[in-house]
């Protein structure tokens, strides 16, 4: 699954900037769709989100590079919370996004990837760390360590949502690689 070797490192800067813009727009649209469709209200358990925009982030990681994916995560956080959220939601999504990015990068770059861990496991780990980052944000904002009380439920949800996002990303990556679109 090493699309990076063929494109990410060798891409000219202007091309890369354009692609980052495209992926960022994609991430924002996915976030917006998730917002409108109101998946959050359907989820039986409090506060569990699907995180659709992570599909765009994961594909960016493999086709553009990790720093570019990090840019997409941060910028999408800023834009979504300016347009539709608040300072609180910004703190939540940026800490969650950075935490998820770190663990996903570590796992993908590790020797385990490809042989023992697939993108699905990486996505599950990313989802868990995203929730962990959100709890850290809430602890900082409220000053109460008791916010960790929410973490077990969120972690269970993250296994399911991570799996779904991971499978979807994998299918899309396979399609892109097969058609040599990158």
């Amino acid at each position: 699954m090493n699309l990076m070797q063929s494109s990410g490192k060798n891409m000219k800067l202007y091309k890369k900037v354009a692609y980052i813009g495209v992926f960022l727009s994609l991430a924002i649209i996915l976030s917006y769709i998730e917002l409108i469709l109101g998946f959050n209200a359907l989820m039986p358990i409090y506060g569990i989100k699907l995180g659709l925009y992570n599909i765009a982030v994961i594909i960016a990681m493999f086709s553009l590079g990790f720093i570019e994916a990090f840019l997409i995560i941060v910028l999408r956080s800023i834009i979504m919370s300016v347009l539709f959220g608040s300072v609180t939601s910004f703190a939540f999504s940026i800490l969650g996004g950075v935490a998820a990015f770190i663990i996903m990068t570590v796992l993908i770059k590790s020797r385990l990837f490809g042989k023992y861990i697939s993108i699905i496991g990486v996505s599950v780990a990313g989802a868990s760390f995203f929730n962990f980052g959100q709890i850290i944000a809430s602890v900082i904002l409220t000053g109460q360590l008791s916010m960790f009380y929410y973490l077990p439920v969120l972690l269970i949800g993250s296994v399911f949502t991570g799996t779904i996002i991971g499978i979807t990303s994998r299918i899309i990556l396979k399609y892109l690689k097969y058609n040599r679109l990158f």
Partner: protein
Amino acid sequence: MKDKINKRFGFLIGDIFIAVFVLLIAAIMFVSFTINGQNKGGKTAFIYVNGEILYEVPLDKNYNDEIKIGTEMIIEISNGRVRIQYSNCKNQNCVKIGSINTQNQIIACMPNRIYILIKSEADNLINEFDAIIG
């Protein structure tokens, strides 16, 4: 580069490990929270509005009360349980989560910056010290 993902959905053995590990952490946390909450008596619900304690309510049996916070929220206390009965926030997560009754449980309404925290008598002192130092 050989495509190493060859099964139907693409699960590899490490993926199962990761999922099980996360679930295990969740289970351990949940169990330790539940055990921690049972023993101590004298539970009090602290209602924080904008970061400051506005109300302290003892959670004894047969103590029923309703606390209104402006036009934003109505909190109901009955039979040792606290819950948010009404909130004017958009996502209503705080209402959906139901009631709490043991120590260290917390209900938070982030948009309104209101949260309810249950602490036992022994921990009140620790909270006060945090306020002085921090």
